[in-house]
């Protein structure tokens, strides 16, 4: 059952190198749980031996105790039997205890490995460049943490111990069978061969149709998703019947493949069971003949034991073939997990750091305390001398070229100059490159050519964390995190006091509504702040930036349909936030643009006009067109 489910889920793609992946995974498991694994190995072995001893008991029971009773006419003496039962009971206890223990250890190992994998995945994910998130569907990333990890759980906790267990069992049972009777062992082996062949062909058919089912399921899934998303449109256009018809076609296809896949999968059980029974019968007949002739001292008790072994031989062989299949399938998940782990993290060669400074005798001195003044600590690589440059918020772009891929440049020769405290506005149509420019300042992406300087230092030399700490950012779509309102505002500055938080909230016009929330600043936010309105979430995002108190600010004005009153409140708090800071704003609102020190008009990745509002109106170019609403085309 479990094997089938796995096949359904992860049967999509064949893994190129399952052996290599398995080795890597096993190494991962061993790394932290070496002793545990060793113990499990030993315990499984002990369990198997105990079990075989138990089976041997049945042989002895008849041959050594019961048959003598029947043959001798004396008063039967049960003491030897009692002793034998006592002995076998010990074996049984050892078997049970070792099975329990190895299961107990495996729970720890499995869950522990999964936890470590999850943690490492997440840790690594946090270091990946933005580009990774741009190029991978979010659903796919999520599914690594859930589906793929889950598949591994099945594999580590069940498949692998079972393969080991079955391996031991096969060997020990085989040895016992050979000791008991060689001709019968040969008969059993032939039947096992037949069984493996039948299983393989049924499993092969089943697998083929499972792949098809997976494909059809994907098609049905996609169709449902699209239609459910557009259900209201379907209603408005009375398109229900057409949609139903289309769905029926896809659904019927899915049925056919699911039917076939499951049919072949269901054949496996009876084929194995009945072939096992047939093998049993054949051994019984051959063994009966042998025992009757007394060939090679083969006894009735021997036959009884052999028949038990016959059963316990075919079972593990089936298990191994099934589990091996499951393991190969689980490797598809392991591959995705390791692929994420192997992604190259964001490179950071920066060595210029941000430190607190105090001024003494006109010179900047590094300080361990919070002084409220910051400086770039520049250790020159050539001679090891140290420079301190005060953090002011001066940003220069010099001939910057950028493309998300090397072969497609989207920004060409961007030049701009922002003095501390200046406000720079970017305007232009969708796709002109406004957001892209702002993403370069904090090095979400690295440029292909040119230089970006921050307070005269090439941003490539600044440690990324410190660079980003010195920049405040308010994005167009607000993202909040699970946690209290207070924690969300504190997001940008871990050591912010409650007073600082309240001050930031007041600056952002958020204090009022926060106080009206049921638990005020301690109200829990969940699901990206789903319990707040769009406007309130934006105010929180502004407060979050305000608490950092950065010298440079990047603002992406929201364009979503917010009513005029809320918009005015947001505008007010944004204006307050911008005061006294170097601000790069992707502007959508007239007032913001007009109040800017410099306006950059972008078109297709180039700055085509620059200047103040008055200058640009004078020029009667693209800006004039945009401003007067005479432009055409999006």
């Amino acid at each position, binding site marked *: 059952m479990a094997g089938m489910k796995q096949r359904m889920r992860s049967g999509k793609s064949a893994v190129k190198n399952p052996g290599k992946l398995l080795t890597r995974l096993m190494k991962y498991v061993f790394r932290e749980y070496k002793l545990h694994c060793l113990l499990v190995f030993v315990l499984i072995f002990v369990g198997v031996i105990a079990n075989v001893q138990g089976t041997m008991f049945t042989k002895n029971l008849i041959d050594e105790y019961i048959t003598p009773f029947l043959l001798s006419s004396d008063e039967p003496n049960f003491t030897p039997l*009692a002793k034998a039962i006592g002995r076998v009971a010990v074996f049984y206890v050892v078997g049970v205890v070792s099975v329990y223990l190895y299961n107990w250890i495996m729970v720890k190992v499995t869950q522990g490995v999964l936890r470590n994998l999850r943690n490492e995945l997440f840790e690594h994910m946090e270091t990946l460049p933005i580009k990774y998130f741009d190029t991978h569907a979010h659903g796919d*990333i999520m599914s690594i943490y859930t589906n793929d990890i889950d598949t591994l759980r099945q594999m580590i906790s069940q498949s692998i111990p079972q393969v080991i267990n079955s391996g031991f069992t096969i060997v020990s049972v085989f040895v016992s069978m050979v000791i008991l009777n060689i001709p019968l062992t040969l008969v059993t082996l032939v039947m096992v061969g037949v069984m493996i062949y039948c299983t393989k062909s049924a499993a092969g058919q089943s697998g083929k149709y499972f792949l098809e089912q997976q494909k059809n399921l994907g098609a049905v899934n996609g169709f449902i998703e699209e239609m459910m998303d557009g259900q209201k449109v379907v209603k408005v256009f009375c398109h229900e019947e057409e949609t139903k018809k289309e769905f029926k076609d896809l659904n019927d296809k899915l049925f056919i493949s699911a039917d076939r896949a499951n049919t072949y999968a269901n054949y496996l059980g009876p084929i194995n069971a009945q072939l096992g029974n047939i093998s049993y019968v054949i051994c019984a007949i051959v063994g009966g003949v042998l025992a009757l002739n007394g060939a090679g001292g083969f006894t009735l008790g021997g036959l009884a034991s052999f028949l038990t072994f016959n059963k316990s031989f075919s079972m593990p062989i089936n298990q191994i073939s099934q589990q091996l299949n499951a393991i190969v399938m689980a490797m598809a998940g392991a591959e995705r997990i390791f692929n994420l782990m192997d992604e190259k993290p964001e490179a950071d060669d920066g060595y210029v750091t941000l430190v607190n400074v105090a001024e003494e005798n006109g010179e900047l001195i590094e300080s361990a305390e919070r002084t409220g003044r910051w400086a770039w600590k520049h250790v020159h690589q050539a001679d090891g001398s140290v420079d301190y440059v005060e953090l002011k918020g001066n940003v220069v772009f010099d001939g910057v070229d950028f493309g998300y891929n090397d072969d497609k440049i989207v920004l060409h020769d961007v030049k701009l100059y922002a003095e501390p405290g200046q406000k720079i506005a970017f305007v232009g149509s969708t796709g002109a490159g406004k957001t892209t420019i702002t993403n370069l300042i904090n090095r979400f992406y690295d440029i292909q050519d040119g230089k970006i300087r921050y307070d005269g230092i090439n941003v490539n030399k600044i440690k990324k964390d410190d660079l980003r700490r010195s920049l405040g950012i308010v994005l167009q779509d607000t993202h909040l995190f699970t946690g209290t309102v207070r924690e969300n505002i504190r997001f940008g500055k871990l050591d912010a006091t409650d007073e600082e938080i309240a001050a930031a909230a007041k600056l952002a016009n958020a204090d009022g509504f926060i106080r009206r929330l049921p638990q005020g600043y301690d109200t829990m936010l969940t699901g990206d702040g789903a319990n707040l309105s769009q406007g309130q979430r934006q105010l929180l995002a502004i407060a979050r930036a305000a608490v950092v108190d950065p010298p440079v600010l990047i603002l992406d004005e929201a364009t979503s349909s917010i009513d005029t009153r809320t918009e*005015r409140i947001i505008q007010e708090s944004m204006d307050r936030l911008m005061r006294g800071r170097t601000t790069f704003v992707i502007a959508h609102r*007239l007032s913001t643009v007009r109040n800017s020190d410099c306006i950059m008009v972008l078109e297709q990745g180039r700055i085509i006009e620059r200047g103040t509002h008055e200058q640009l109106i004078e020029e009667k170019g693209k800006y004039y067109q945009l401003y007067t609403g005479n432009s*055409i085309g999006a």
Partner: protein
Amino acid sequence: MVRRLLKEVKEYKRASIATPVFMILEVLMETAIPFLMASIIDDGVNAGDMNYIYKVGGLMLVTAALGLAAGMAGGRFGAKASAGFAKNLREAMFSRIQTYSFANIDKFSTAGLVTRLTTDVTNVQMAYQMTLRMFMRAPASMICAMIMAFSINAQLSMIYLIAVLILGTVLFFIIRHAMGYFEQAFPKYDAMNASVQENVSAIRVVKAYVREDQETEKFHRASENIYRIFVKAENNVIFNAPLMMITVYTCIILISWFGAKMIVVESLTTGEMMSLLAYCMNILMSLMMLSMVFVMLSMSTASIRRISEVLNETSEIQNPENPVMEVADGSIVFKDVEFSYKKDSEEPVLKQINLDIKSGETIGIIGGTGSAKTSLVNLISRLYDVTKGEVLVGGRNVKEYDIEVLRDKVSAVLQKNVLFTGSILDNLRWGNLNATDEECMEACRLACADEFIERFPMKYQTHIEQGGNNVSGGQKQRLCIARALLKKPKILILDDSTSAVDTATDAKIRRALGEEIPDTTKLIIAQRISSVQDADRIIVMDEGEVNGFGTHKELLDANEIYREVYESQTKGGGDFDEKGGEA
């Protein structure tokens, strides 16, 4: 709940009945084998009768072959029944959803419906197959084995009966206990997923604020919680296997001891004892299987509930008995209309709405978020039913019309609009299946969509991806308008439908609509005053009520809200460029 689902078995009823029948047949065959075994040993081997061994051995082979045939037939029908059941369930749900009104659709989230139609149905399919194949098989196997055992030796078989009772009870408690932990684990799992989700979608914020370490720490906590709860849950489950072993071993020892004594006094034969030992496995394995079936079933109850919720949801908006098939004109009247989304909510969304709109008028609607502009227009095409009062279209209550006729003549361009996978032409023809290429182009011209379509290399054959993600927001909106125009409606509703279109194009579209389809009543909801100020009359909505209704001039003079909005938008508060985010 379950019965509602079972109604969908339909044409697979025969397969559903055949499956357990064949499974029981397989069980009978399997049970017969140890019995025949005993007979071979006792009457064949011990009596030295080789012919007897051949005879019974042959019989056993036939039995095994029959068992194989029955087993495969059971598997075949089980697969057919369950896959067919799943197919019917999906179809029933999908058809049901197609009858939903907007109110019904609001109740379920898109993601929720997708899960219900896929994962939940798959769960039920699995559980159904398991039930058909195992639910009858396991008890039957146990009972048969039990009967055989009792017929061999009732006294010794009592051991099995007691073992089954004890093992059954203990298994029950273990599973119940473990299920409790597993249920606790789900919310912990959700919390971890939320943490991943948050970080994936808001990675820019995390990186911009250099929060990687704190977020990682948060995730570690969530991950550790899952570790703890799962270890607890699994530590219960791992008792199952050793417990089973203890029971089997105890039975073997007891049977051996008492059996040996019985053999000595000749009330039991060696062969019979061998059979008894073989049945031991049959009985206890069946019990184990049965417990697994119960686990599967109890895990699928959540899915069953979620599916039946979809199937039981009924739409309140139904076609009237003798529907009116013709909409006379585009006039709209609201008479004392009150409306709430939920019947029992105290504060209605719309109250005391009285409007009289003449056919062919252009009406602008403006108001803050939450002022119920969208709710107002949704009542016209009967996407929702009024709670009180009535809405008249073409002089008749909307409830008297055939729904399809009404919605064809009242064409709404929704605020949240989507395009579907297919060519541009395919999408346009949603408006009218029989529209010619020329008609489609004409509609695009009116909606100012022709200019960008002509620039696509494939023009009108351009493939639109799911949700229309390969065209920009403004282009999507214009295609949606064109699609709505193809209905040749008497009333056209544009619900914030040009928000992503730049001001100039917006004006151009309005001009085209005014000139080319002058007889169509047009309702335009907008955020921008510029989009509505040329309308014949403008409705100002405020908190579910009509605050003002008149021309631009009248409202500017007399309506405070309107004036306020107007001033904020023209004196440095308006939009600078087009709306809609960066691609």
